[in-house]
């Protein structure tokens, strides 16, 4: 329980210290907060694995009077993934976000914003109260928008404003849904809502909240803000924005649909969700193919990968009698979300390391990188393996589970989407990969150290390892898994 408190409070304290202290001391305080909170995240995961769901009722007040925080398997997995990503981002950011490289403003703003974003993420993962989730989401969005704008270039500012517009619109929709729920039921606790007496406004409320969260997750067609924002932010910031931020609203969607209101999932609603996911897979991939800048390719790939998560909605749990494991598609979607988080952050960090050397992310300037920075190139290649869903990787395990669930429930069309998405991912990731393998002159002598290059490799390796050792995360996810994930919607 104390680990949970540390995890929520320490990043915020670190953020304050990073603002208040002089730059060097501030950076040091930020790093200390990262190290401490990472340790807390690991400890929390171990605790959940050992003793099951951890629940904290603030001030000792149980819902509906008070607010409950709960760490179940899903939350622990996400917290663990986020901690690993933030730790690696911080290590890679040290030289990239140094004042002489990134400019004094970006160097000053990056650390507190990063920690604020992390605190918001953690609070979203563990909150059980819809309004509390709203607050967390707002904090998250504000930190994310600021991280996009931090570079100060006109394009980045434009992208940030567009992002802000979408984020606020999404928040408003979500908030409207929350108001309807509160008016009808007098509680916002997810656990209590699951046992509520149905009200006629519930479908509308769920639709509003879902639409708002979709805009924040950048699901097609609400994705237009994502590519310019993620491509325009400094690379370490992009890593967090792409890997972690969409996962927060996705987790809320999972909680709403599978825990709070599973009975509202009509066939039409599920069909619409999965069709939007399909649109994202195809549109994101096709747009990624057309890009000539590495960060834009990686950003559009996020649009496509988010689509997978929604394709799993109509499949979750269905036909669990036909497959030898429960909750195939639900677990598959979470596996895809985690491995995407690890692989995508590795890709953006690799891009950032290359841009330290070339100061450009145009594909043509990447020639020869496999020779100049082999470890970074290897990290990029391993991440590509995960994103294309080739074994052995977490992406493959997730895809296999979702596809099997699709076949077992007789909806093999969705499996076709997953398979096509994999082939498209090969198509758009092949170009950058082939170019970094082409011989070329990369200025030598200023190449970064090997230890620093190994950081993205750590993340990419973790995403591959997820496919080889998938049993422990699988067991972890089973802790506190909602019944609807197993029985289907």
């Amino acid at each position, binding site marked *: 329980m104390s680990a949970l408190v540390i995890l929520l409070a320490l990043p915020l304290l670190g953020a304050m210290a990073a603002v208040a202290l002089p730059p060097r001391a501030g950076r040091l305080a930020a790093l200390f907060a990262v190290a401490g909170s990472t340790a807390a995240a690991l400890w929390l995961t171990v605790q959940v694995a050992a003793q099951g769901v951890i629940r904290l009722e603030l001030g000792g007040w149980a819902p509906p009077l008070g607010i409950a925080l709960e760490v179940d398997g899903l939350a622990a997995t996400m917290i663990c993934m986020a901690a690993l990503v933030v730790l690696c981002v911080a290590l890679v950011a040290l030289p990239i976000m140094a004042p002489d490289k990134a400019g004094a403003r970006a160097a000053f703003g990056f650390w507190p914003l990063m920690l604020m974003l992390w605190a918001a993420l953690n609070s979203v993962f563990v909150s059980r109260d819809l309004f509390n989730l709203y607050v967390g989401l707002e904090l998250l969005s504000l930190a994310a928008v600021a991280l996009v704008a931090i570079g100060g270039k006109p394009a980045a500012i434009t992208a940030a404003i567009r992002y802000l517009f979408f984020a606020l619109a999404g928040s408003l929709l979500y908030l409207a849904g929350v108001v309807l729920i509160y008016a009808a039921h007098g509680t916002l606790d997810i656990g209590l809502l699951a046992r509520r007496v149905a009200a006629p406004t519930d479908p509308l409320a769920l639709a509003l909240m879902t639409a708002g969260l979709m805009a924040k997750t950048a699901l097609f067609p609400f994705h237009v803000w994502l590519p310019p924002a993620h491509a325009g932010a400094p690379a370490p910031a992009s890593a967090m924005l792409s890997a972690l931020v969409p996962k927060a609203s996705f987790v809320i969607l999972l909680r709403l649909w599978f825990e709070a209101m599973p009975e509202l999932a009509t066939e039409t609603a599920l069909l619409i969700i999965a069709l939007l996911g399909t649109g994202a897979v195809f549109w994101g991939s096709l747009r990624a193919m057309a890009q000539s800048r590495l960060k834009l390719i990686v950003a559009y790939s996020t649009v496509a990968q988010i689509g997978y998560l929604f394709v799993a909605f109509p499949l979750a749990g269905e036909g669990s009698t*036909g*497959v*030898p*494991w*429960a909750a195939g598609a639900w*677990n598959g979607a979470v596996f895809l979300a985690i491995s995407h988080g690890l692989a995508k952050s590795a890709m953006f960090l690799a891009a950032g390391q290359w841009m330290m050397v070339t100061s450009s992310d145009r594909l043509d300037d990447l020639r020869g990188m496999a*020779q100049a920075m*082999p470890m970074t190139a*290897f990290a990029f290649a391993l991440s590509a*393996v995960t994103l294309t869903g*080739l*074994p*052995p990787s977490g992406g*493959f*395990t997730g895809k*296999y*589970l979702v*596809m*099997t*669930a*699709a*076949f*077992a429930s007789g909806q*093999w069309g969705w*499996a076709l989407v997953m*398979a096509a998405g*994999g*082939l498209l991912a*090969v198509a758009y990731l*092949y170009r950058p990969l*082939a170019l970094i*393998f*082409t*011989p070329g002159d990369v200025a030598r002598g200023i190449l970064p150290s090997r230890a620093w290059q190994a950081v993205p490799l750590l993340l990419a390796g973790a995403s591959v390892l997820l*496919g*080889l*050792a*998938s*049993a422990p995360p*699988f067991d972890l996810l089973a802790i506190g898994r909602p019944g609807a994930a197993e029985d289907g919607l």
Partner: protein
Amino acid sequence: MTALLPVLLLMSSLIPSVITFFVAQDSYRVRNSLSLGGAIVKVVLIVLMLFAVADGAYYETEFPLAPGLVLLLRIDALALLFISLSAILWLLTTIYAITYLGTKPNLSRFFGFFSLCVAATTGLALSGSLISFFIFFELLTLSTWPLVAHKQNEASLSAARRYLLYAMPSSAALLWAIVWLESTTGPVLFTEYTDMGALDPMSQRAIFALFIFGLGMKAALVPLHGWLPTAMAAPAPVSALLHAVAVVKAGAFGIVRVVSDVFGMERVTALGVGVPLAVLASVTILWGSFRALQQQEIKKRLAFSTVSQVSYIILGVALASPLAMIGGRAHLVHQGLMKITLFFCAGIYDERADVRRIDGLNGLGPRMPWTSLCFSLGALGMIGLPPLAGFISKIYLGLGGLEAGAPWVLGVLAASTLLNAAYFLPMIYRLWILPAADDAKGDERSPGLVIPAVIAALAALGAGGLAASAFSPLGWATLIVMGE
């Protein structure tokens, strides 16, 4: 201890591979010891196991991937046949590659992926379930891509691109087949009978076709063979390994597994998919030989010869009679030994005599007697001259065809033998009979290249001459088929 054996076998190439990536370019000794050490350890482990498995023992290890889904490593007779081939040829190819690549750049990357490729092949051989097989099958695709692209010039990069262009759709088809099948049957283990009762015969046929499409690309079945000749842009040791044991054999081995261990012979016959597969294999045999005849480059001709020869294995499986199955499995090893000999020699001609085209072979025989002798042995074996290895395969396949009531197979074999002779004999003729050009170079002062070729040639000779022994490839194939 016995449960650890499959893991040790896998680790004997995986660990050297991972360490090699981090070795500095000029630490030749460290890198070579890693590669050779791993190869030797693996051969020793296999020799230890041979006798036990011959007595019917098997070793098994499993890792849970998800509840109900396991990565199963299992050593049975068929696995050991493939694994001994890969272990011995890996050792030879490593010796050859160390000399061949000398002090060229990017050696750590090369040997890292080289070992990874062998680890994937080992994993393929050991796989006891479909999902494990698929994991290693794709690991093989991924680890061979950097080897094909290794020279990083225009030709090798476009060859690598073409390789992926063929590999990715077929991998999607394979995954499709596996998921479709396993969504009704649960995880498929090779040792257990797969109950396909929930699938109607048309779906079963469709799944079979998807399997053949997915695996046939690596086995270079016509019309999925287009990547193989272009992949010749890779360094010679890679071509040798690709053609003899790694990629094309993985495809053929996969088809053997699917036909005999997933579907089972009776179901294949009942569904009526065996004959179309046999026809496809026959077309590949003839088309590959025919195209080989048209090639003027040594390596290209050998590549098309591989297309043709690998389909003997598939033909043997598809015919489904015991003798044909023995012939097909034995050819898995025979073709590997003969083809690696030929590729070693082609590399030596290229490296020591600067000869890449067939008309450059004139008179090289007396100048490079060891290499040319090995090359001739390999070529004659491919044609099927008794008592060389290829003869044994062909005689069993022919008898098997008669046994299966498919006498047309004899016609295919005869036509293929004639074509083999038509493209190999002129090369032998040029080597030994025609006079050398005035400015011809050529010497053999490179034991690291010549000795592996000689050993491989002797092994091919032994596999044919000592075919009656229980530990010859033929004897072992008989053991496998009798055990099934």
